[in-house]
């Protein structure tokens, strides 16, 4: 499993995403740039430039046509994946912290930061696929302010107009975006900020990571906690490995909390846990700072991690990974 090191960012990574086919990997960073790479060899295909602040978040539609990004310059931008052209820009009073497409790429949900008297807001935009994509409606389809703790992460669910959110307080909730009503919540899903939320392949469950050092699998239907993975370090990201019963967790003590960070060089690890048995099965080290974001190839053949150190590391799983049956012959449904 020799990693490919993607060196194209000058500052820490904020989010990385594979497209649906898994041939492309999108990465965004505090250096204001979005990069796209060939996932199989790490060659850089292009950049999406124009943002004037940290790009916090990025997502790509199922057809790999549109890219959506949110940034600290208070913009939500729609890009053409192919040309790198900025097709449309929405502006808000505060930074955009999280974006996500729905299942068929017709809608986008975004979270804007709570700051300077502005409340945290969740907006849903209709994305027009007509023409060259430059004609988009300026106004959101829906908008509401979640009451209570601000939202940090979100995603569409299979139920129309229902999104799942993770919050600063550790809460995980379901919202009806039309009414802004909180349908269901688990106030104590985590005891600290929810840092990541990724959906399973069929969108029936999701995994969240938190600064409380744990990651959890939730049933998206009823928010029931199915599995818990407790580590010893604050987690920034959690991903599900398709076709294998593993989850990947990444994090690390933040630099400001650790005087010794530099001395644990290359010791920031992606942790592999068994999804069902809740046991750690291995670690992959390499980053020189905390791991901020992890993404797994949709076919489960490789994974990528983006670190505070500004590097993206792409690991292709070798045969032993697929053959390994560390826990016997039990058939585990994905």
């Amino acid at each position, binding site marked *: 499993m020799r990693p490919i090191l993607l060196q194209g960012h000058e500052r820490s990574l904020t989010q990385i995403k594979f497209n649906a086919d898994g041939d492309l990997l999108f990465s965004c960073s505090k250096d204001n740039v979005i990069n796209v790479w060939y996932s199989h060899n790490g060659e850089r295909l292009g950049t999406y430039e124009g943002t004037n602040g940290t790009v916090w978040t990025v997502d790509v539609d199922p057809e790999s046509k549109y890219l959506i990004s949110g940034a600290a310059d208070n913009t939500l931008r729609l890009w053409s994946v192919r040309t790198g052209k900025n097709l449309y820009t929405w502006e808000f009073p505060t930074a955009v912290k999280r974006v996500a497409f729905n299942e068929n790429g017709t809608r986008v949900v975004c979270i804007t930061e709570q700051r300077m008297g502005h409340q945290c807001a969740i907006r849903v935009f209709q994305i027009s696929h007509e023409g060259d994509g430059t004609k988009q409606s300026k106004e959101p389809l829906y908008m509401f302010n979640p009451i209570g703790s601000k939202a940090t992460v979100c995603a569409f669910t*299979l139920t129309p107009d229902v999104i799942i959110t993770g919050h600063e307080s550790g809460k995980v909730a379901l919202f009806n975006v039309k009414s802004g009503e909180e349908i269901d919540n688990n106030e104590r899903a985590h005891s600290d900020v929810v840092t990541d939320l990724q959906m399973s392949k*069929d969108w*029936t*469950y999701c995994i969240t990571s938190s600064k409380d*050092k744990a990651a959890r699998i939730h*049933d998206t*239907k009823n928010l029931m906690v*199915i599995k818990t993975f407790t*580590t*010893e*370090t604050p987690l920034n990201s959690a991903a599900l490995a398709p076709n294998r019963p593993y989850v990947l967790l990444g994090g690390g*003590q933040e630099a400001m909390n*650790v*005087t*010794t960070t530099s*001395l*644990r060089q290359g010791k920031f690890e992606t942790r592999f846990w068994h*999804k*069902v*048995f809740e046991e750690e099965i291995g670690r992959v080290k390499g980053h020189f700072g905390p791991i901020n974001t992890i993404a797994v190839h949709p076919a489960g053949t490789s994974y990528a991690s983006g670190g505070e150190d500004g590097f993206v590391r792409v690991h292709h799983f070798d045969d032993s990974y697929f053959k390994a049956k560390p*826990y*016997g012959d*039990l*058939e*585990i*449904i*994905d």
Partner: protein
Amino acid sequence: MPEATKQVDDGIDYADIENKYQVQYDDGFDNLVVVDGIPIIDKSKLDRLLTKITKEFNKRGVSVKQDDIFLPWDDASGKSKGYMFVEFKNENDANLALVNLDNYPFDARHTFRVNRFTDIERYADLDETYVEPELEEYTPREHLRAWLADPQGRDQYVTYRGDEVNIHWHGKPSQSEVAHKPDWKDFLYVAWSPSGTYIATLHRQGVRLWGGPSWKPQQRFAHPLVKLIDFSPCEQYLVTWSNEPIVVPEGAVQGPQYFSPDDEGNNLAVWDIKSGDLLRTFSTYNEGDPPSGKKQMQWPALKWSPDDKYVARITPGQMISVYELPSMYLEGKKSLKIEGVVDFEWCPLGEKDREETNAVNGVKTSKKAKENTLAYWTPEVQNQPARVTLLAFPSRAIMRQKNLFNVTECKLYWQNQGDFLCVKVDRHTKTKKSIFCNLEIFRMREKDCPVEVVELKDTVMDFSWEPKGERFAIVSSSDPNLGNPGPGVTIKTDVSFYQLDRSKNDFRLLRTLPSRTSNAIRWSPRGRHVVLATVGSSSKSELEFWDLDFNSDDRKEGATEWGSGIQLLGTADHYGVTDVEWDPSGRYLATSASAWTHTLENGYAIWDFRGQEIVKFIQDRFKQFIWRPRPPTLLSKEKQKQIRKNLREYSRAFDEEDAAEESNVSAELIALRKRLVDEWNAWRILRKKELGEE
């Protein structure tokens, strides 16, 4: 004594103790006292004894004539009964006797206990316990060492994390379980007594001891704001220390278990563990100390002789004061005045010594029990060279002295059997520019304690004897950063092993392991195995597991090559490790990263002696891990030898046990996993079905 009896009936509370100090004018016997602890004699010695007793009484300011004394006789044996009645002129004299002569050491074996005749009935119970403390054991008290009888022969350890204490059994995977989960609240930390009989918690109000199969409170010592404690080696006494001087508020409970106004201002207390009584208090602030001087206090502040008979305290530069137990009187009524004395250590008792003393105690032999030995050192003072002295105690006979030159600092290291003493001497060159090190090794078991010197060029940072062995290890360094600790600075060190060469009777280098960062040597309590660790470093946290007798099993060809038996068994890494401790059996090693030192990846791990990880728990706010110590084995040397001889048979049984255990564990684990997978799959199928229907 109608009144006295009534008070007994009232049950036990401290009122009766307070009554001790009450003066009862209407009682006709108040001028009568009972003195216990009188030597038992036959009639021929009566005169001499009475003369001596009256002399001693008068010396202490209590005037008494022989006629006032009545000594009861046991007609059957023709000997005295060991106590006497004294009638004083008046009650005041009686009180004086009570104050001045109670607990008075008459001679080495007899201590007076003085009680008012009117109290004696009240104290009947207490006194009986005193005279025959064994009696107490017969009462249905818990067997405080019951844990040793664990059928699986497991050891225990305590962990303290957050506000939670757990006492665990450590054994094979399925036998490792929680032994007890106490609900102790609001305490600083936990500590085991030296043989593991008690576990202590330090609370605001004082120390509590817990133990027995019930883990019930066994004793308490009311020393408010206690910060440090130290048990005596035989677990008979406890020393407590607080940085706050003792204050006895008005109306505070009084009694033998509490501080009295006399103790005010002191901050160090000695207690009797069985009775809970306060024996004596001291102040750790020496007279003449600069008031603001924040000199590091030495702990333990009191050093115990290995047999619990004496406890000694140093007044730096002046003297060592040795107190006898349990009276806590200054032995021989005077301190050891030693000009310049810096530090001292008692010689430990070896297994051999123990067996000998047991023999002396059991069977009356003519052989005298071995005296205790003290080692101390004095620095160079005005043309007087620095000097290490070995002193027998209580005879105070000097056994050996050695002069040393150009001494900066000495440290005394006793081998745990008392076979050797190493004095690590940091020496400076004449110009005082550089420091090097001499190890002066005294061979205690030989006549006149011959000394041999190992000279080293580097600074020796740590020294450690192999328990029960003839080897030692040192950590030395010539790193220029030595002595200038800074953040992220890890000192480069060399670790060297030395062994007694029996043919030449000197210590020779076995092997040096160069350019390491190890700064801690941890010998297995059984010797032979040793772990080198780098603790307290933010960048290095390596553990090296060494075996010093790896080839000893196949030492058939006669003499093996010097130092060839040293073998690295394994290496490991425990990030941020702060503590490294062997279990009492030398089979396992525990490492922990305590939140008291840093907050990164706190928790603990247990390894086997080869460095293979057995368990590792990373837990937030983890503070303490301590193995429960074990008392010395009850097996005789012969019995142990016999067991070693027949090990094959035992082994067969254990092999079977282990195999059964293993298959049991794996069966359980497989079942658990199967259940987990079934649950998961059931849920997945349900969701997938729903998905299909939509």
